């Protein structure tokens, strides 16, 4: 069976003046389809960089990245963007909702970008969004703008947006970092349930031991490499 995510000898560094300290050093990683994997490690260890590289929004300096069998290095703009919009869902710590779109419109956006629906009034899109929002407890908030929502609600909208177009991989960068313990727990439970129901691969960067405990695989990043792999 093809791995959902396969990284081979991936390196990345960011230039800071005259020096360019490495963030990732010849990192190898494979994650099977449908796996819930967590990335943990110290701040600045490279978790977000790794997620960005998997998402194709930051290219590696060296190495290959294959997502659902596609080598991202062979894709150029706009093919890379089209690949990302189809196969990847992204959840950010700071939500990154579009402040000028309503809850329903934020969730509709990936469907529209992927051509699944043409306009806001598309019945298929409306049904899918309504079902998703219902499950996430946001049924009565579909017309609200992000600034009118609580932190937990915003992150649930972000989860809906990441899943609505049924991607192969969902990447979550510390999704509970801005939430209280209880809300964070609820969000993770929802996310876990949704991802498992859909058979989607989830890679989540986190510091939360509780979250780490729920995952199928625990990946620790240290010195730019995957230092510990459990299960």
């Amino acid at each position: 069976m093809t791995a959902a995510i396969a990284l081979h000898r991936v390196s990345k560094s960011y230039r800071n003046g005259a020096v360019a300290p490495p963030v990732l050093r010849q990192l190898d990683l494979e994650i099977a389809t449908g796996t819930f994997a967590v990335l943990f490690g110290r701040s600045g260890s490279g978790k977000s960089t790794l997620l960005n590289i998997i998402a194709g929004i930051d290219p590696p300096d060296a190495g290959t990245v294959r997502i659902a069998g596609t080598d991202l290095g062979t894709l150029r703009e706009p093919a890379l963007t089209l690949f990302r919009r189809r196969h990847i869902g992204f959840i950010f710590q700071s939500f990154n909702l579009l402040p000028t779109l309503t809850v329903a419109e934020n969730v509709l956006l990936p469907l529209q970008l992927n051509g699944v629906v043409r306009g806001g009034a598309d019945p298929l899109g409306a049904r899918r969004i309504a079902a998703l929002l219902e499950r996430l407890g946001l049924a009565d908030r579909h017309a609200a703008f992000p600034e009118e929502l609580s932190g937990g609600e915003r992150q649930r909208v972000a989860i809906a947006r990441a899943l609505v177009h049924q991607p192969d991989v969902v990447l979550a960068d510390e999704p509970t970092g801005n939430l209280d313990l209880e809300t964070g727990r609820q969000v993770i439970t929802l996310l876990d349930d949704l991802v498992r129901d859909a058979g989607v691969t989830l890679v989540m960067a986190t510091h939360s031991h509780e979250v780490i405990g729920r995952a199928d695989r625990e990946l620790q990043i240290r010195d730019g490499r995957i230092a510990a792999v459990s299960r």
Partner: protein
Amino acid sequence: MDASLPYLASARHLWRHPWQLGLGVLGIALGVAAVVAIQTTRASVSHAFDAATAALAGGATHQIIAAPPGVDEQLLARLRRAGVAPRSTPIIERTVTTLGDAARTLTVLGIDPFAARGHALAGAMPANLAFLTRQGAYANAATATMLGVAPGDRLMLGFSGGTIALELVAIAADTLPDELLVVDLATAQEAFGLAGHLSRIDLLLDTGADDSAEIERRIRALLPANHWLVAAGTLRATLGRLTEAFHANLGALGLLALLVGLFLVYNAQSFLVRQRRELFGRLRTLGVTRAQLARVVLFEALLFGSGGTALGLALGLVLARRLLRLALQTINDLYFHLQVAELQLSVPVLLGAALLGIGGTVLAAVPAIVEAARASPRQLASRIAGERTAAKVIRRVAMFGALLIAIGSATLWLPSTSMQLGLAALFLLLLGGALLVPPLVHTALGVLQAPLGALCGHAGFQATRAARRNLSRTGVAAAALALAVASGLGIGTMVESFRHAVDAWLGQMLRADLYLSAPGSDDYASGGALDDALLTALASVDGVAGITTVRTLTLTPPGDVLKLTGYELNRRAFDGFQLLAGDRDAIWRRWQREPIALASEPFARKRRLAVGDRINLPARAGTLSVEIAGIYRDYGNGRGTLAIDRALLENAFGPIATSSAGIYLSASADLRAVQRAIEALLPATGLLHLRPQQAIRDASLQVFDRTFLIAGVLRDVATVIAAIGVFAGLLALALERTREFATQRALGQTRAALWWQLMLETGLLGLLAGLCALPLGGLIAIVLIDVVNVRAFGWTMAITIPWPMLGHGLLLALGAALLAGCYPAWRLAAQPPAAALREE
């Protein structure tokens, strides 16, 4: 089809920031308005001129003109006998003025109503030919109303040779041009002292006929010496070319407004794009392609550009109405009478302005689109990455600016007299200079950071730091402000230098104590006003030590206008000529003995004449050949003048009316007493004006100031545009930094401290822009004085640095920036930090 949500997300962002949107669109509108106003004014002046030319040519295809005293009347009969010009109309045309304080200028046209059949003017002629009675005239209803007369009323009009009394006998059709009085040919000949002569003969030739060239050849064969067959309107077209210099100067001033406008359009549009960097970054992360993002931005640019352009076209036409009045006033003061014109809507001008507004806005969006397309979604979402990119752009822009300055300077050094090339060089230099403003401000802020931090504490440090960091957003506004202030300084320096030079020139030129002048500029004598008897009487007035006289004559050989001035001079008056070339004493020794002339600087420059060259003038009989013995400074006439001795003039051209006399008083004479004595000698018509030297000087400077009123208006327009640009820039920046300031407030920063920091930041920006404007303004002044004016008018002058104006320029830049920063500073300081921090 594109997904609609990225468009909606972007549009809603703008809708939520109506100030930024409104100011951005207003910026585009003002840029377009400046261009529309100036170009429409130019088009309207040209149209008024063409209409006047066409109306007075009366549909003629050709005209026969001649050297003074005019076309021989007998020629008409010869032409008709030869059968070469069956449709020919003899015409006398003269400019006259109404008497009294509010003198109006009109044209009197003498025609033969029987010969004029077929001439367009005859179509407007009243059915009854009562005007054929001696001194009868007709005019259209508008002219009669303007003059306050009705049929049966008498009119007293003045011209340089005296006065003419006419009776309005009928009202003509409205097709007759305004400000025109038509009289019988014989009446005009008698009144203007032109018995046996005509101003011209209008011919209607069949230019499409096979033998038209042969007909023209046969007509030419019949012409006496110094008579010419020219295409209709050639004379007025030649006069029209005189206004090209004025148009060119208007163009140079318009260029400055355009450049400031362009910067503002760019500033407005790039701001609207930049402020949504993060939004675009998020969209890209979610899978919006570069092309999709570019289409969103381009679509918006088209919308803003269209909205701003529509508003700008309307504003521009309102402004053009005012500019047109000023332009016509200038033309009437400097060149010739042009009747009040309607605003002429020129399709190419409006299309060009629309292209500038919409195209400029779209072009201004391109760098932001390129940046959005090149950057990765991660970079787009990062503010720091945006500033790094902007810093790189600032460096590149600086290099480009330096390159433009080098090309502009090289263009100035080209051995050319082309006005267009001069204007192109000015454009390059200004654009280059403006592009250097952001990097210069960036460097200066870096240098000022430590000293201001030491001087003003945290606020000083933070203000310099923030101003420097945000230059990607405020740099263009600073450049526009510097450019506007520099334009003001440059134009101001040019006007001040010019005024200074004119004042000094008048001081030297006006040597007599009193001046007596007749209206009009040149004409043949008709035994009227400043006649010999009056001059003799003046000379015998107690206290009068001497009299000099001036006679002027305009020659119009095909394609040229030559103004001749015949002086009857004493040595004191002769020394009033400010010689730029030639030996003063040697010229004075030869003045009354040899056929020599003094050429004014514009005259010599336009004809490339130097001392020792000769020029041939078409005289009454044959040719008058004169040697250029000297070149003198003259700001009185852009077309140039040739000064010769009175006897030389009258020997060649016959008796000419004295247009003015300079009266020199003895040392002990009382000016007021002599003035009263002379006034008692003058005819009661009120046609002659006696004025002391100082009054002439004051009146001349008044005309000068009126002439440059239009420059002042354009300068103010540019400054207002730039001030609005800075305001828009700072407001948009302030709105972007809401969270940053909320954080500072949350950390304990007081409102007052925050206000002080912001005002320091905007003040620094304004002050540095003002400092950049000083050398840029100097550059504009040098190009305007040493290139544009020399190439347009042919006169040179020393540069006078208006020191107080430099101070005002700095204060203006500082004031505009502080004023522009007030509202954003108030808004930021007043906003509850919790609300700002809560925002996504």
